[in-house]
């Protein structure tokens, strides 16, 4: 293929470097410096997609972020698939593989086009609401079809092979946009010494200057850009971010920037290099120099390939040396677009005519055009584009002064390119993100940024200052102001200057009338991505949608990935006119983050794979892995769940671990339990306030179980606390509750009782805890320690002692969660592994068996010990748990939870209470969560009594066991309840004490 539209000279491309790429399965050649869009245009590719609803052929319309049609599915391999990339923003690289996102099965020859021809009737606005929402059950079926037809690309089915990154940045001044205003702002701010970040979405800084024929400081604009960027890069305090789109402007000057670090280099990024990076920027001051998007005019068949924005024509000609056609008709409402015709003529192509909608424009540019021999037709508009797959002509007709009526007959101008300009829409997107309401300006014929509480300044076209000299001036001033506001002074700044150009007044025109009524004329597109037409907006207002927000949602205008960058203002103007209101009266919709689509990779950064979420390990973790443990997630902790031996099922393992612990000795890594060191003379009093039970008399050397409640009286944590010294306690919490309990203690200490002399410190990670449990536990301990008297009378149940275990100083707690004789051995965690291994070695002759959390759960359930968060759910108070023994109402201080438990609802009869449940079928394990009923034959809805909270098969008991909530359960001992299951089975269970094993607790006290 030859690049038929490539101009013989000019442009910022490197003609020596030819690049081969594939588009829709065909191979093309472009040049270094091309975007995919410029390369496709150079190759004469007209159709780059099919439209969303009507499947009409679409071509490239713009040259930047606002492009609605040319969306690419990128990627040479499955793993590198990227949807929704705008061809106008994707740099070409050797071997690039792309296809059109819109257009199924392919853009040139689309099966859906048949639908498209019928589409006018088939899909009016509100189509989805009217048709597909009913019946709702069918939505999923419709959705598949619509999504596929909509063709918004697809994500990869494989893991992304590239590295993505997040980085945190802090700046005194962040400048968004590297055009004339942004560059001059950066130059001014940089000289102040402030930390400056300049970000621009394009591959090169310069913005419109890259295709401008203007001069700055008597130099061609592009040279000034080059010098300025060179100067900025000499500053240590300046970070230059090209290919970086500022996508979101959030609270308190927090902005996100999506940098495409190596998207321009290849299908994969170079080894070890980041593909895309999200910068999370906190800026003291922000200068928005985001420029403006040219607004297309709305006329019949304005979506034909060969209809473009005027500025895009200039960009392709001057920056990329591509002339996308041969005969141009330019329609404009303003002076600025004349330059596109001049650029076209300079490229040696024919300008058929400049069609100026203004009746009597007396601007300088009109005379320049005439002096260059270009035909200027004033008071006239292009009312319709002719052609089927490409423009072949423009129907023009005279227009009245206000632009709302044609005043004469139409005539045909033959051409293959129609450029239109309805003026500029300031790129106020980021300003909108902050919650600021845009303000209409008649002078700028566009919405400008409104008031904001953010530390934000604006400069250049985003302010409606469209002329180059104004952009340079405002940029310099606002760059200086931002630096000054951030606390940096600069004395002399030389302002870049450009010769002022006299300007004629632009005409506020959006929708070109047709000789037929809008509803009967060929389609006049407003939003190209969602196929919203002028007729559809008029229909919406006729149907009674008056709020612009409702019109937007009803028609889907602005809902595409381009967020209506080209269409929204036209749509609002059409809605306003059809409701006989002004644009300010109608108002505007608000843009939300993100400005352009952001990949998931950039959002996620390195928070994926192994780093998706922290995994917390105990000091024994390596041993658990080496010994085949299966792990369970408890919060962020990885806890051994069970240790299967080869050939064992999970139930086999549990049966073995449970029996070994009950019959000989087991070993549990209990290091994950939260541990809080409490010191101070008020420590004991504090415990009494936060726990429900009494602490006044707990002696040094003793431990006690405590229940912690919220002010509402509901249980929220439990654990054993040891009295280490008169003013020194060690509190343990549940594994998942550790952080919450510490915060709970702190909030009361800091906000309610600051006078109490006590300090809380987390020592969870400091102590490694190995729990030796089982009838042979003492024998194992005897082999490991010589300085702790293990005699049952000297070292009783619920005592703690310190001494040396396996040569390591240890604190040993005789507390038990299994109901067996247990020693919890706590050592400084650096020695945890050494002690663990010594315990395993000492226990070998007793067949010491490591067990995981599942066996722990079974053993404690056999004993009726609760797990807060499993057997409780925030609606359960101690009496519901039959834990009244742990509530000391006689304490002088009204402890947390006491008043809450006394509320009427907490003391009423028939509350759900925790009881034991013994299934009549000894093999039947009731699923946790199953609901109890009194009568399984009762008509639905049955009376629900409560759910099963814990349920296991107990190998020690030879039958299944459960705990659960039952209304009034504590008074129903011995009665039967029924658990109807989803599979039709009904399990009958007897209400009983939850203590199934060793009810007198003799085993743990031996």
């Amino acid at each position, binding site marked *: 293929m030859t690049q038929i539209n490539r101009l013989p000279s000019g442009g910022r491309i490197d003609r020596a470097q030819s690049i081969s790429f594939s588009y829709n399965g065909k191979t093309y050649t472009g040049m270094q410096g091309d975007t995919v869009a410029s390369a496709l245009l150079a190759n004469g590719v007209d159709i780059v997609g099919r439209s969303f609803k009507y499947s009409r052929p679409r071509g490239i319309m713009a040259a930047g972020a606002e492009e609605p049609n040319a969306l690419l599915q990128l990627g040479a391999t499955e793993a590198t698939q990227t949807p929704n990339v705008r061809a106008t923003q994707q740099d070409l690289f050797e071997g690039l593989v792309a296809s059109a996102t819109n257009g199924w099965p392919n853009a040139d020859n689309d099966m859906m086009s048949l639908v498209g021809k019928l589409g006018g009737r088939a899909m009016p606005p509100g189509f989805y609401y009217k048709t597909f929402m009913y019946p709702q059950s069918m939505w999923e079926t419709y959705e598949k079809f619509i999504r596929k037809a909509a063709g918004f690309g697809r994500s990869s089915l494989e893991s992304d092979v590239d*590295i993505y990154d997040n*980085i*945190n*940045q*802090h700046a005194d001044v962040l400048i968004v946009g590297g055009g004339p205003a942004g560059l001059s702002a950066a130059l001014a701010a940089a000289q102040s010494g402030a*930390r400056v970040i300049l970000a621009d979405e394009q591959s090169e800084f310069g913005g419109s200057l890259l295709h401008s024929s203007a001069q700055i400081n008597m130099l061609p604009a592009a040279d000034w850009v080059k010098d300025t960027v060179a100067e900025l890069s000499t500053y240590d305090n300046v970070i230059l971010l090209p290919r970086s789109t500022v996508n979101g402007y959030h609270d308190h000057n927090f902005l996100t920037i999506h940098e495409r670090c190596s998207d321009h280099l290849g299908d994969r990024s170079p080894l*070890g*290099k*980041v593909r895309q990076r999200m910068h*999370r920027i*906190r800026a003291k001051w922000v200068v928005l120099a985001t420029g403006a998007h040219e607004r297309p005019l709305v006329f019949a068949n304005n979506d034909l390939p060969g209809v473009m924005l005027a500025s895009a024509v200039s960009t392709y000609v001057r920056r990329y040396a591509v002339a996308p056609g041969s005969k141009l008709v330019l329609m404009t409402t303003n002076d600025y677009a004349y330059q596109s015709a001049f650029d076209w003529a300079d490229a040696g192509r024919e300008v058929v005519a400049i069609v100026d909608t203004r009746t009597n424009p007396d601007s300088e540019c009109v005379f320049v055009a005439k002096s260059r021999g270009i035909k200027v037709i004033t008071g006239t508009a292009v009312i319709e584009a002719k052609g089927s797959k490409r423009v072949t002509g423009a129907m023009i007709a005279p227009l009245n002064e206000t632009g709302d009526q044609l005043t004469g007959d139409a005539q045909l101008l033959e051409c293959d390119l129609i450029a239109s300009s309805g003026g500029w829409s300031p790129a106020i997107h980021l300003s909108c993100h902050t919650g600021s309401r845009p303000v209409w300006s008649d002078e700028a014929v566009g919405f400008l940024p409104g008031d904001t509480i953010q530390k934000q300044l604006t400069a250049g076209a985003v302010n409606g200052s469209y002329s180059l000299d104004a952009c340079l001036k405002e940029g310099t001033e606002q760059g200086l102001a931002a630096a000054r506001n951030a606390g940096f002074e600069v004395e002399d700044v030389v302002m870049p200057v450009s010769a002022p150009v006299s300007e004629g007044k632009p005409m506020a025109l959006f929708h070109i009338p047709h000789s037929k009524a809008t509803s009967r004329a060929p389609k006049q597109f407003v939003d190209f991505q969602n196929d919203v037409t002028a007729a559809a907006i008029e229909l919406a207002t006729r149907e009674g949608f008056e709020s612009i927000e409702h019109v937007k949602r009803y028609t889907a205008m602005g809902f595409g990935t381009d967020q209506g960058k080209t269409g929204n203002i036209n749509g609002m103007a059409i809605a306003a006119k059809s409701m006989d209101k002004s644009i300010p009266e109608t108002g505007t919709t608000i843009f939300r983050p993100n400005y352009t689509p952001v990949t998931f990779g950039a959002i996620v950064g*390195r*928070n994926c794979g*192994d*780093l998706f979420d*922290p995994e*917390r*390990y*105990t*000091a024994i*973790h390596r041993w658990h892995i080496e010994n085949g443990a299966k792990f369970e997630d408890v919060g962020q*902790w990885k806890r051994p769940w069970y240790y299967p031996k080869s050939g064992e099922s999970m139930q086999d393992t549990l049966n073995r671990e449970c029996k070994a612990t009950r019959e000989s000795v087991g070993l549990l890594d209990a290091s*994950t339990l939260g541990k809080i*060191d409490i*010191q*101070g*003379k008020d420590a004991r009093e504090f415990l009494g306030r936060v726990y429900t039970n009494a602490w006044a008399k707990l*002696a*040094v*050397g003793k431990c006690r179980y405590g229940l912690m409640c919220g002010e509402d009286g509901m249980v929220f944590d439990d654990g054993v606390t040891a009295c280490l*010294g*008169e*003013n020194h306690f060690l509190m343990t919490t549940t594994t998942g509750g550790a952080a919450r309990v510490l915060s709970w203690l702190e909030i009361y200490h800091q906000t309610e009782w600051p006078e109490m002399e006590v*300090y809380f*410190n987390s*020592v*969870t*990670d*400091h*102590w490694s805890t190995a729990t030796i449990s089982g009838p042979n536990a003492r024998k194992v301990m005897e082999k490991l320690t010589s*300085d*702790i*008297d293990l005699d049952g009378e000297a070292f009783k149940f619920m005592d703690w*002692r*310190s*001494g*040396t275990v*396996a*040569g*390591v*100083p240890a*604190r040993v707690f005789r507390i038990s969660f299994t109901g067996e004789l247990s020693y919890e051995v706590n*050592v*400084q*965690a*650096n*020695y*945890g*592994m*050494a002690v663990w291994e010594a315990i395993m070695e000492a226990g070998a002759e007793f067949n010491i068996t490591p067990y995981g959390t599942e066996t722990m759960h079974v053993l404690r359930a056999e004993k009726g010990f609760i797990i807060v968060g499993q057997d409780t759910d925030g609606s359960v108070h101690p009496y519901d748990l039959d834990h009244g023994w742990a509530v000391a109402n006689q304490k002088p201080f009204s402890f947390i939870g006491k008043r809450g438990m006394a509320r009427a609802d907490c003391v009423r009869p028939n509350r759900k209470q925790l009881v034991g449940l013994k299934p009549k079928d000894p093999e039947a394990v009731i699923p946790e969560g199953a609901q109890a009923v009194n009568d399984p034959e009762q008509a639905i809805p049955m009376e629900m009594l409560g759910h099963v909270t814990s349920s296991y098969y107990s190998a020690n008991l030879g039958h299944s066991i459960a705990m659960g909530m039952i209304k009034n359960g504590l008074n129903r001992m011995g009665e039967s309840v029924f658990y109807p299951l989803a599979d039709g089975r009904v399990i009958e269970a007897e209400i009983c004490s939850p203590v199934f094993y060793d009810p007198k607790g003799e085993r743990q006290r031996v």
Partner: protein
Amino acid sequence: MSNTTTQTDATDTSQNIVQMNQIPADASVRAESPLYHADLKTVAEQGTQDAGIVLQELALLDHLVLRGSVDNAAFTTGVESALGMVLPANLQSAEHEGRVIRWISPDEWLVTTAGGMGFELEQQLREAMGETHFAIVNVSGGQTVITVEGADAEEMLKKCTPYDIHISHMPVGKVVTSLFGKSQAVIRRTGEQGFELVIRRSFADYCWLWLQDASGEFGFSVKES
């Protein structure tokens, strides 16, 4: 008061706080720092040349948390006399004879000292302060120190923490507790190109993986502890 314990290492002090020497008398008992499993010795031998980042675990130091009020002269002078350093103010740190003290919170400081010296230091501090209101907690097993040095250290750490670590905002000696990935760290600037992280034991593997991953594009090497 009655001494219910038989162990001489566990001492009842005048504050009725139990102090305990947690280091084995027998030096042959193997100690495993939180990054023991990462086998940094082997990683160190495979190090990249001209690495932009140099990582090192300062393993098995003793860590003491100090709690007390700056308005309490008994506390402040006690710390000063035992440590030979004035308590650092907000976000500051101080170093003296191999000991580092870091401000953590208005009533909290972290002291690190050579491994095995923590017990003695705690005794000295307790003696110096007497019966006033304060707390000292040995957390040596619960955390470790990693140093991050090199020309790219700052750039790499910008990927780890949202805190502004630019030298104009975080000069040498400044210390902050902030996020580190989805975990957290006490971050101190030790030099123009040097930082130190104090991280929790259970998160050490995550933090180390994160550091390796974030350092990848600069090239990194590991110094043996």
